[in-house]
């Protein structure tokens, strides 16, 4: 198929539709409005339904309802709106319902800015709502990658019966890049949704569906949590993904995700010109965090330290430190809010850090 120049938001929406998502519930917030707008135009034409909810709270609960009835469903928002969705995310996790939530992260806290940020890393990877749960969190660094991961985002949600979050930022959402849509087919064996509440005929033989996250007895709640944790263990062991760039024999490893990782590649080129070999470990899944991949790279004798670069006060750096576990120094470069560091600034920090 020919390449198309598309905005990240629109491309993500189209990819979701091609992955079989025909239901979208959302609420306007910058910088992700192109997603609901695209869905509003396209979904009626594919026999689906777009609905603008009265709030993010309602939107995520509409997602809960559609998921409870077995539909492939999605919502999108940006940081303040995603905070409002956290209650629903916890219920989705507790009721073991699949769905995809896109967060085009903007600067915070509070109303913050509308410029890109990575300040929602903790919220996304630690669960965000109440209770012991994790959504699977995917962090694209280009429009094409965002498109390519949508099919698997829905598949992961179905296989593990969990919310999946696409953690991007305003740059990915607003940027136009050429994208190619490949025929979207699932690479996973998808389980039957025989648990869905669709209407029950007592003669049908299937048990009555009860979609629920209430387990009032200690033992029953334990059972749910054991089931979730067992699932999370499998996810940690099998689904962590990272891109390794220039890491073989590198002296310094930069760890960054999303848009910032791309800027780091430019910084790496600047360092290379100055004769310093710097590699990049770019988590593609930020939960599960690609511990194995990072650890292998960091274990190389050539590697002296890791530098994590984020548009935050230092969030992912905690996962990097947990992974490196004191074996080598781990530094942080970045600012909270929504200041996107330039390649030159990152390169300058790397060079200075090397001399320190």
């Amino acid at each position, binding site marked *: 198929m020919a390449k198309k120049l598309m905005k990240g938001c629109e491309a993500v929406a189209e990819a979701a539709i091609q992955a079989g998502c025909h239901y979208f519930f959302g609420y306007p917030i910058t910088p992700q409005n192109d997603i609901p707008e695209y869905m509003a135009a396209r979904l009626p034409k594919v026999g689906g339904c777009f609905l603008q909810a009265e709030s993010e709270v309602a939107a995520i*609960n509409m997602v809960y309802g559609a998921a409870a009835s077995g539909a492939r469903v999605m919502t999108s928002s940006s940081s303040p709106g995603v905070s409002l969705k956290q209650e629903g995310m916890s*219920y989705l996790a507790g009721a073991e319902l699949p769905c995809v939530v896109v967060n085009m992260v903007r600067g915070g806290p509070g109303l913050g800015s509308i410029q890109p940020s990575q300040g929602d890393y903790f919220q996304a990877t630690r669960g965000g709502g109440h209770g012991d749960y994790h959504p699977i969190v995917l962090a694209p660094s280009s429009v094409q990658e965002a498109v390519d991961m949508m099919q698997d985002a829905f598949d992961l949600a179905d296989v593990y019966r969990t919310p999946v979050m696409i953690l991007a930022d305003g740059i990915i959402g607003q940027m136009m890049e050429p994208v190619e849509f490949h025929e979207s087919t699932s690479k996973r064996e998808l389980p039957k949704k025989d648990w869905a*509440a669709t*209407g029950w005929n*007592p003669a049908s033989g299937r048990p009555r569906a009860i979609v*629920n996250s*209430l387990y009032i007895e200690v033992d029953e709640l334990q059972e749910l949590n054991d089931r979730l944790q067992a699932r999370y263990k499998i996810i940690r062991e099998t689904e962590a993904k990272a891109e390794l760039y220039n890491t073989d024999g590198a002296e310094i490893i930069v760890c960054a995700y999303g848009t910032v990782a791309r800027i780091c590649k430019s910084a790496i080129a600047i360092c290379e010109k100055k004769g310093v070999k710097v590699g990049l470990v770019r988590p593609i899944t930020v939960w599960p965090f690609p511990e194995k991949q990072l650890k292998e790279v960091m274990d190389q004798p050539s590697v002296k330290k890791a530098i994590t670069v984020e548009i935050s006060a230092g969030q992912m750096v905690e996962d990097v430190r947990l992974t490196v576990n004191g074996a080598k120094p781990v530094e942080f470069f970045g600012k909270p809010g929504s200041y996107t560091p330039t390649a030159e600034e990152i390169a300058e920090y790397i060079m200075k850090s090397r001399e320190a």
Partner: protein
Amino acid sequence: MQTVFKKTPVLTDAILHYCPGCGHGIVHRLVAEVIEELGIQDRTVAYVPVGCAVFGYKYFNVDSVEAAHGRAPAAATGTKRTDPNRVVFTYQGDGDLASIGAAEIVHAAHRGEKITTIFINNAIYGMTGGQMAPTTLVGQKTTTSPYGRDENHCGKPIRIAEMLATIEGSAYIERVAVNTPANIVKAKKAIKNAFECQLAGKGFSLVEVLSNCPTNWGMSPVESMEWLEQNMIPYYPLGVKKDITKEV
């Protein structure tokens, strides 16, 4: 032997957890009987609330979903929109619907969402232990209005049926009570009308059911029915508030 009464198969055999004399059991039965009579059990999805009816999924013998506090109308929207052929109802109390879920119910009505809501108004929070609800009457003592509800401090009770009747998208709104056999018969008719309104695709339908809470009101079941009659019905008048199915 002739059968003169049989439990509807749309209620399970689970034993209700409600307090003695509580109106929830009556309303559960009415809803279940209506579903049976309309022959829609196999395409009905129940949305139960957070509140005393939180275990509703154990009793309604249909596919059921437990919603977050107040969010049932939004979640029910998700189920209805993914297959309009489904019959979807929410069963909500006054804390759930009139307080934390006020936005969701107003906008379900505003969109003309083709769902049915059974709204139990017993003027109090039951499950959490008798706190004040938006529907608590002026002067009524609760655990969070120990000196009686003071209208200067927290306003006068909200009349949900009348409010929702003003919204263009609502199609059928009625207030009933379950304090006497005659009123229970009328309540069942109202619930049936509401479901038929949904089946006809007319829009949003809601039945507000005035019910009792002997435990948290601190009364015997009989006293509570009398209190309902004397105090609630004068403030919350019964009757059809809106019915576009009858309009020409």
